[in-house]
């Protein structure tokens, strides 16, 4: 029996179908104008695009336990986590389309989304979100609040110094942070077994005297339970945890990735294991009617469609805006003149 209440189940479901449909719609929009010969510079969405279809359980199952004041740092594949954390969907979409009203006024892009209202950030550099999450946890500890931080990373990132240093730092100072490893088996073209010494990334925790938990399927309810315990520990000031979640990469590393290196059987297996389908049967088992399930899904789709249409209507930034926003204070700092020491009795 699932531990989550029916309300929780429907919330998780709403979240996951939003995230899945969001990626499907972005895929369509992104590929428009890039066909038949894929040209990364063409089409309505600029740049690279890393979609997270198949990762939804790791976003929803963890972030459902979080409040707006909790901090999340995500990866280069951030949309499902941003959606789960409650990032403004319209402004996020506008950012992905490079529009003026986007979260970063079109300066950041899809790998660099910042929504301070819900304390969400992400970075395009592997594992580099770990130290800032640790810093968020440090701030919570110093200010004696009960907020926590969650840092997401991929299984390929567990071999980075930034992650390992963060584990030690978090452990030494008993910080309220949870590291969530999304294991989709592939670091672009490199299968986990070829480049990483452990099959279970949560074992990294062993060397740093903290719990490490692996959720071996992407059953969102298992993720939800493991995350609930870890986040509870953090909130109760009992220190950090590592959680690894088995997820699946359903859309390649980036849009346009030919995935010629990946056995077809592996792609098919990823397509078959669908955490959303599994959650639907959990919902039915919990007594939720099919009509209600359809309604939740349809509402989620409408919200996504609306965000995308809104974003596409937004203006592109003026070129001159490229020169703004480097600093928030004046370049001179908080002052533009030195104190006049003569006035207080300096040298005659």
């Amino acid at each position, binding site marked *: 029996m699932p531990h989550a209440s029916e309300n929780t189940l429907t919330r998780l479901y709403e979240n996951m179908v939003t995230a899945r449909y969001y990626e499907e719609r972005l895929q369509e929009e992104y590929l428009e104008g890039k066909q038949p010969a894929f040209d990364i*510079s063409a089409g309505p969405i600029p740049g690279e695009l890393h979609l997270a279809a198949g990762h939804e359980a790791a976003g929803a199952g963890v972030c459902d336990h979080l409040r707006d004041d909790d901090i999340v740092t995500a990866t280069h594949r951030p949309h499902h986590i941003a959606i789960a954390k409650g990032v403004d969907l319209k402004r996020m979409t506008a950012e992905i389309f490079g529009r003026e009203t986007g979260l970063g006024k079109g300066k950041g892009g899809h*790998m660099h989304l910042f929504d301070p209202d819900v304390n969400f950030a992400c970075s395009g550099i592997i594992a580099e979100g770990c130290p800032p999450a640790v810093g968020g946890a440090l701030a919570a500890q110093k200010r004696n609040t009960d907020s926590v931080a969650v840092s997401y990373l991929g299984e390929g990132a567990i071999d980075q*110094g930034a992650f390992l240093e963060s584990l030690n730092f978090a452990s030494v100072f008993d910080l309220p942070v949870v590291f969530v490893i999304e294991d989709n088996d592939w670091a672009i073209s*490199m299968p986990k077994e070829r480049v990483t010494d452990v099959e279970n990334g949560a074992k990294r925790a062993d060397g740093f005297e903290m719990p490490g938990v692996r959720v071996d399927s992407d059953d969102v309810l298992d993720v939800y339970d493991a995350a609930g315990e870890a986040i509870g520990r953090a909130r109760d000031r009992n220190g950090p945890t590592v959680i690894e979640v088995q997820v699946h990469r359903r859309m390649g590393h980036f849009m346009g990735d030919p995935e010629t290196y990946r056995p077809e059987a592996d792609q098919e297996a990823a397509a078959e294991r669908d955490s959303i389908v599994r959650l639907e049967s959990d919902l039915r088992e919990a007594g939720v009617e099919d009509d209600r399930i359809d309604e939740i899904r349809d509402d989620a789709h409408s919200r996504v469609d609306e965000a995308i249409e809104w974003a596409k209507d937004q203006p592109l*930034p003026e*070129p001159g805006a490229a020169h703004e926003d480097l600093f928030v204070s004046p370049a001179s700092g908080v002052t533009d003149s030195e104190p006049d020491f003569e006035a207080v009795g300096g040298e005659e």
Partner: protein
Amino acid sequence: MSGAESTRELTMSRAMVSAIAHEMRENDDVFYMGEDVADYGGIFDSTQGLREEFGYDRIMDVPISETAYIGAAVGAAQAGMRPIAELMFVDFFGVAMDQIYNQMAKNTYMSGGNVSVPMVLTAAVGGTYNDAAQHSQTLYGTFAHIPGLKIVVPSTAYEAKGLMHNAIRDDDPVLYMFHKRLMGIGWMPAPDGPKTPVPETDYTIPFGRADVKRDGEDVTIVTLGLHVHRALEAAETLASDGISAEVIDLRSLVPLDTETIVESVEKTGNLVVVDEDYRSYGVTGEVTARVAEEALDALERVERVAVPDVPIPYSRPLEKEVIPGTEDIVNAATRTQ
């Protein structure tokens, strides 16, 4: 380039790979480490086909641990091998900067020349495809600043091969910075220009020898990488406006061929330096300073065309605003007249 040699037209990536393959066949000490360099063949085609010929032992997919594998390249080089390590994007340098800045670059000097580090670090550089602030930089100035690294930047297939042969054979650490837009990758169309005839045979292009890509009388345009092609395009436009521009392709930043630049400026009197890196404390300032030191009297006007001092933005109109375009070069050259 000798006309007698047998040549074929190659993309820049094929030319780069052909030099690596040649050196690997000749020398068992040469091997390649990087992310997605084996089965994928390099995200930017930098190792296409090499794993098929040389196997996983010599074309090594490595953990995403740049500190470890770039540092391992330093160590293997010091132990007498000739490793090539690849930074998938130069922007990822930050996670391994100690190995690059404090080990790779300094060990020879600190040992009084008793230790050599015969390695190559390859890195994809550059923007123009909206990959934003953490995946679009060139960082030429960042690396050229630290003493102890030789730095090459090919602009065509011909240069890509000749510079790679020299980089692998050289007994010092060489940073080989290839521009993504020039490689001829299917999904990122290259401009006309980088695809050139390339001799079948191996040949080495010396570091520190710039190439005058176009002769001119009125203004000297000094640049590198992608912007060689933008400068050549600008020179065409300038010619139709009656301005004769000389275009110099630096080809290497360390050593820097000051002599060729100075000779040109002594002829034209005007200098435009074009760089895809940030404006301040970089290539444009350095080239200008060298000319000022050597030939101040000859210098009438100077223009710097570079990325204003902001990170590379994502949205297309913003990126276009900050990365120098052909028109920016035309305008700068025109202002010198």
